């Protein structure tokens, strides 16, 4: 098992290096290059020359890349053009919000999706089955941001049941420790702050969780249907095991293996979707910051955020792979 983990960790290195080359080249390939990107479109030629000298952009490319890599390893991606603050500081301030949101979305998708997919498979061809199949098809066809706007309009604006923007009531003066607002509230025992932060997660979380939900329902249903026809299930039934035991130990356990890989793959989808949902709900996470960076052409922020999000994505997938190895001993061998 340890060898498996080490091998997977080593495979990470070329990917991360390639990623850094790609995003380094990206900033260089932009019209006007990094100097123009940092100084804006009205920069004069002299400004650009001074900037290039100052930041070593007149050096050969490989020197520049090695410097970039050296700084990137120390999580230094320069400063935002708009706010002048360090990109990493901004990322770390906002990322907890996105983690809270994606976790909520994932818990929602898994918590609803697996039981729903399982029940749909048990009642194969029935009403629940067909409606969950149709629902999951609709779920993957709907543009996330439209769904988010619709939910916000109905539940926040018209009905006023849930808050429709921000991460917390503005009037609550909460203490910040980790920037995970819910956690902070719990840690400082400011219950109202924690509750407010949690309530603010519901609408964007559900909107964000819809696509993973649709996919999880579909995969769970398909894999349960696959497993019930396996020989070992027939054997278990023939041995006279209680139906509940067969379901729990033989069907669900085996059916969840493909589901767990899908859950890992959903992280990318969630990070993509977060950019859209956070924008709709003015949720102060990395997603809405990315959207602002696009509108303002804030290239250092774009570069740093995308690189850091990609690293997060790769690491999460690594963790999923490892947990998959724990769940299914057959994976380790390969």
């Amino acid at each position, binding site marked *: 098992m340890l060898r498996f983990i080490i091998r997977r960790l080593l495979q990470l290195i070329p990917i991360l290096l*390639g990623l850094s080359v790609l995003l380094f080249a990206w900033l260089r390939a932009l019209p006007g290059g990094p100097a123009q990107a940092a100084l804006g479109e009205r920069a004069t030629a002299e400004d650009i020359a001074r900037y290039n000298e100052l930041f070593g952009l007149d050096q050969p490319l490989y020197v520049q890349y090695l410097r970039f890599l050296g700084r990137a390893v120390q999580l230094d991606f320069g400063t935002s053009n708009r706010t002048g603050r360090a990109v990493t500081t901004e990322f770390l301030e906002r990322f907890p919000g996105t983690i809270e949101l994606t976790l909520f979305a994932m818990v929602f998708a898994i918590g609803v999706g697996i039981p729903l997919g399982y029940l749909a498979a048990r009642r194969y061809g029935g009403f629940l089955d067909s409606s969950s199949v149709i629902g999951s*098809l609709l779920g993957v*066809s709907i543009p*996330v*941001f*439209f769904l988010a706007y619709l939910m916000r309009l109905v539940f926040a604006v018209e009905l006023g049941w849930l808050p429709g923007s921000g991460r917390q009531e503005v009037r609550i003066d909460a203490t910040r420790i980790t920037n995970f607002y819910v956690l902070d509230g719990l840690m400082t025992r400011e219950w109202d702050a924690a509750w407010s932060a949690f309530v603010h997660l519901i609408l964007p979380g559900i909107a964000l969780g819809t696509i993973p939900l649709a996919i999880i329902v579909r995969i769970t249903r398909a894999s349960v249907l696959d497993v019930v026809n396996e020989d070992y299930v027939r054997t278990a039934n023939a041995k006279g095991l209680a139906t509940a035991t067969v379901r729990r130990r033989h069907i669900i356990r085996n059916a969840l293996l493909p589901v767990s890989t899908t859950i890992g793959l959903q992280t990318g989808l969630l990070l993509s*979707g977060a950019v859209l949902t956070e924008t709709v709900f003015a949720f102060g996470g990395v997603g809405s910051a990315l959207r602002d960076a696009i509108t303002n*052409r804030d290239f250092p922020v*774009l570069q740093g955020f995308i690189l850091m999000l*990609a690293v997060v994505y790769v690491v999460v997938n690594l963790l999923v792979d490892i947990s998959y190895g724990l769940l299914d001993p057959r994976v380790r061998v390969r």
Partner: protein
Amino acid sequence: MTSLGERKRDRIDMLAAQAGAVPTGEVGLSLTRSAFRRLRRDPVAIIGAVIVVVFLVVAAFAPLLAPKDPIAQYLLSEIRPGSIPGAREGFPLGVDNLGRDLLSRLIHGSRQSLLIGVVSTVLGVAAGMTLGILAGAFGGWVDTVVMRFVDILLSIPSLLMAITVSVLLGQNQWALMIAIAVTQVPIFARLLRGSMLAQRGSDYAVAARALGVRPARIVFGHVLPNSVSPVIVQATLSLATAIIEAAALSFLGLGDPDIARPEWGAMLASAQAYLSIRPWLAVWPAVCIIVVALGFTLLGERLREALDPKFRR
């Protein structure tokens, strides 16, 4: 979702096959033809195909079908902050915030949306297949290099990848298509490589090699044609994703800024600002996107089942 009668018939066919008898009508059919035959009998696949064909026809004949000019402005005197005229004589779906006929814009928009979907998928398939063929045909170090590159592309979440490409190329419809295509390249490359590697070890490939058939001929004449069916399925599904992703990019301000070409994603994105005044401005383009995406998805899913020998009876 098969009807009872059909399920019974399939069951009979299966029993007949087990008894050693060949069911009539399936004698010596190639996989493709029998797949097509099954698709024709499948109501869900037909619904998907009908949706797709209807929208293709609308897109093809958009100028003839649209009652009005999609960029001409009407009823401007009635548009005020907080009020946009709704449906009325001559404007079945009303006008948008700039007084342009919504129905005509939807009809013309089908052209641009489908074009973006098709072109970006074709680009993605072409690039992905090239990489996949390289990796799958040569194996060895070529395979390693190509697949590492593909892994790097896969390590950026798709929308972020599209944003990166789109920012680099600037705002025009080609940038949009290429940005979406790039996110699909790694998927097709992996898919084709996997399926070619599986075919490479098969008996007919080994036999061809033993007979001294040239490697290029084995790859293009034998292995490739037997490996493309998952690519076809994925391409159908990708058409849906591409159209949805185009909408997302438009929403982020990375769409095609040319107002002469209405597009559903851009319409949906700009309608968000008027959602509380006239939600229909957003609902109609959204419905178009959902229905087309659904059509491609239904068709793709059923195609997958029809081409999968596991479901072949």
